[in-house]
């Protein structure tokens, strides 16, 4: 299995990609998942992140099969 990474909205456009897969076991936290998926890009201030569709922070551990998402402040409604 693997860890699935998703990017949304302006972050997706800035990075030029909407998703990617990381090999399981290569990253331990959400922060490491970001670094690996973006080639160590600086994370924009105010970036929000979710693990399996629940809000988390950069220190949250990730496991095989997880979905990790990064996105800018939300602007719905």
């Amino acid at each position, binding site marked *: 299995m693997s860890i699935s990474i998703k990017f949304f909205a302006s972050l997706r456009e800035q990075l030029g990609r909407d998703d990617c897969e990381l090999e399981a076991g290569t990253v331990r936290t959400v922060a490491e998942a970001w670094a690996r998926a973006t080639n160590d890009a600086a994370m924009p201030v105010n970036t929000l992140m979710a693990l399996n569709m629940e809000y988390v922070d950069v220190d949250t551990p990730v496991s095989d099969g997880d979905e990790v*998402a990064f996105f*800018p402040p*939300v602007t*719905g409604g």
Partner: protein
Amino acid sequence: MKVEIREAGFEPFAEVSRYQTAMQAAGKFGAAAVFVGSMRDFNEGDTVEQMWLEHYPGMTEKYLEKISCDAMERWDLLDSFILHRVGRICPADAIVLVAVWSAHRAAAFEASRWLMEELKSRAPFWKKETLSEGERWVAKNTPG
């Protein structure tokens, strides 16, 4: 309780009316509070021609269901309905509908407002506006 994300345009008051009829709670609720957010043709000093609304499929529904459940418990609501548009949106189109039903009015007023604030601050939607000079992502929502 219902949460729906829809690409097609909708007439918000026809939706509320239909939902309320299907509830079969006539005579039980004394109060219904409905909020509709629509697209304005003007934002931050610029004329907006159209808008693109992106969301995070799966997480959006999950989050809206969570806040609906929270509101039902916190205010003893009889029912709630949230409908949110995604995709290409034109000025005057309805974007979001939040409707709640309760026995007494305070619960309906408070829950509808709370749901809108939670939706605007945390539900994963993003707006991109098309102006005559090009496109821009809306940076952030203002507090209500």
